């Protein structure tokens, strides 16, 4: 094998310019793929983390039918206390669950005693909400950036609503809501903070303490609209969802039939489609890499065979078996691919490192000046490298086969 590699390497050196060009082309493809994957995946992961860690959670648990009618925030589709305790027991038994938070959600009127508008209120336990959504507090643009912002009697007001009403931190506002029985109740709150939207302009979600929500809605038991769950590893979210479903004894029918529903973030957020599009783009970039490698290696190997017909005739005449001739050219293709992959990975990682050093900023939603920090998983590097090498060998297969099938007598006559 060593001798095959030695001969292949020498042959590649024989046509320096062509080999260099091919290696450069492959390396360029690898660099492009690695940098593209690193940048897009890190932006995608950042966006997903932003969404899941600041308001959506990795997954949510509702009573069946709640998500379908979530725009009306139906109180009659809240999870009953028995269901809540069953869910909490199940969550406690799943090791990949990091934290969870119960919420009561309801539509209400929001008034500053001069004007009134509608608002979506989330009643939460401050500590639990912050544990399940670690970036939630970072969305507070003005006011208290700590759990005390959600103490009883305080409200976090969405930014656009605050701007429209001229509401400031320290103002007193009133929230009025209709409970399940149809009676109306209201409560005054102190504005403790102004909350940025996680995804961009819009959003009417205000936050109050869970007990205040129960008081307004006159709920006595531990009744909740949804339970937001944070998982230890986001890629495992589907496994955790399955574990929860299994723990709750939810079959496919029961899941749809109105018992309890478990939804992952990707089922709840339209951003999942964008994330999927990024994955599709990454896939097509890899297809382009395959095409680059395939065409360049095929071209160079066809030329190599064509230019060395007499040499092939000579080695065949002196007794080299066809499979060895095949190996010679396959190893040549392998060496080209390997060199291209090594150079590409080296430059690609260098560029990724450089991008991290240069601290390029970008904006996402209301968040501005976010620093681009591209990272690439070792598996992606290995996959790209293996892809290049395997495609290189495959591209060499046809020219190598042609070389191995040459009749020595014909090849020796070749001028």
């Amino acid at each position: 094998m060593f001798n095959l590699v030695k001969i292949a390497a020498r042959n590649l050196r024989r046509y320096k310019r062509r080999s260099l060009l091919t290696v450069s082309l492959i390396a360029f493809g690898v660099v492009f793929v690695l940098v593209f994957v690193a940048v897009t995946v890190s932006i995608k992961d950042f966006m997903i983390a932003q969404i899941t860690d600041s308001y959506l959670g990795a997954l949510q648990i509702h009573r069946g039918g709640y998500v379908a009618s979530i725009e009306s925030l139906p109180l009659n589709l809240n999870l009953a206390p028995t269901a809540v305790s069953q869910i909490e027991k199940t969550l406690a038994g799943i090791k990949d669950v990091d934290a969870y938070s119960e919420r009561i959600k309801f539509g209400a009127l929001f008034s500053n005693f001069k004007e009134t508008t509608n608002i979506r209120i989330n009643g939460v336990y401050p500590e639990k909400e912050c544990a399940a959504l670690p970036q939630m507090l970072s969305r507070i643009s003005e006011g208290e950036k700590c759990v005390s912002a959600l103490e009883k009697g305080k409200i976090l007001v969405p930014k656009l609503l605050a701007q429209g009403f001229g509401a400031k931190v320290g103002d007193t506002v009133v929230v009025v809501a209709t409970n399940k029985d149809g009676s109306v109740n209201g409560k005054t709150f102190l504005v403790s903070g102004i909350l940025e939207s996680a995804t961009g302009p819009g959003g009417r979600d205000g936050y109050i303490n869970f007990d205040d929500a129960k008081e307004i809605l006159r709920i006595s038991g531990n009744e909740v609209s949804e339970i937001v769950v944070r998982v230890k590893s986001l890629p495992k979210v589907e496994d955790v969802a399955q574990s929860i479903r299994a723990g709750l004894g939810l079959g496919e029918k029961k899941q749809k039939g109105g018992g309890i529903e478990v939804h992952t973030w990707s089922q709840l957020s339209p951003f999942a489609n964008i994330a999927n599009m990024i994955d599709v783009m990454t896939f097509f970039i890899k297809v382009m890499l395959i095409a680059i490698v395939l065409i360049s290696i095929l071209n160079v190997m066809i030329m190599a065979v064509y230019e060395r017909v007499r040499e092939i005739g000579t080695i065949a005449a002196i007794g080299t078996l066809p499979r060895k001739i095949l190996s010679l050219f396959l190893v040549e293709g392998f060496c080209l691919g390997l060199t291209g992959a090594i150079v590409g990975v080296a430059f690609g990682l260098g560029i990724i490192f450089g991008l991290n050093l240069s601290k390029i900023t970008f904006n996402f939603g209301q968040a501005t000046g976010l620093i681009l920090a591209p990272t690439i998983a070792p598996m992606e590097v290995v996959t790209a490298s293996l892809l290049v090498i395997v495609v290189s060998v495959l591209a060499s297969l046809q020219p190598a086969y042609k070389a191995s099938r040459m009749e020595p007598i014909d090849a020796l006559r070749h001028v």
Partner: protein
Amino acid sequence: MSLIVAKSLSKTYATDSVEVKALQDVSFEIEPGAFLAFIGPSGSGKTTLLNLVGCLDKPTSGELQVAGMDVLKLGRRQAAEFRGQNIGFIFQSFNLIAVLTAFENVEYPLVMVQELPLAERRDRVLKALQAVGMLEQKNQMPEQLSGGQKQRVAIARALVTRPKLVLADEPTANLDHQTAYMILRLMKQMRDSFGITFIFSTHDTRIIGEAEIIYSLEDGRLVQREERGKPNVQSSEDRGAKLTAL
């Protein structure tokens, strides 16, 4: 026992419109240790005959045995194996592998064909290069060698596998007269030293005299056999002992 037995060999190349009879009813026997030339003008069938004997091509009709093997029954792969073990080749254009040094060119068939261990390969290659007087140039690339030196390396490559037979198709065609003569002398010396049968083709009248047996070909027919010197025929044990020294 004869090393080569050819009976009524014929070879016809057919194209769409023309049929060319390259060899017609050629029969001969060659003893081990012969130093033999096929001579004749261009197109007389010398190369075709060498290709048949070298198992590179098959006749249209006839019988051919080389080293006791009916080579016409060999498939593509078996023929390659047979060549690798029994036949050495010397080409008109030397056909050294451009990216390998003289040493590596000679080593090539031992690595790729006979798959010998490193120590044995090294020993054999050095001895072969020494035998052809190219030991000092062992690390030079083919492009750094003169025509005569390249052909010496090619002879070493043909001998290093310890073949029973070396076939040389116009081995001196690309060499000046003095070098051609030296190459022929070297081939003869190798035959004398190692008992290997040498068959070469040529139309160069200046070197024909070096052959001990001369077969003349004309229009694909064997027209004359001339014996100029008695070949030093040896027993297979003698030949084996001499080859081991290579």
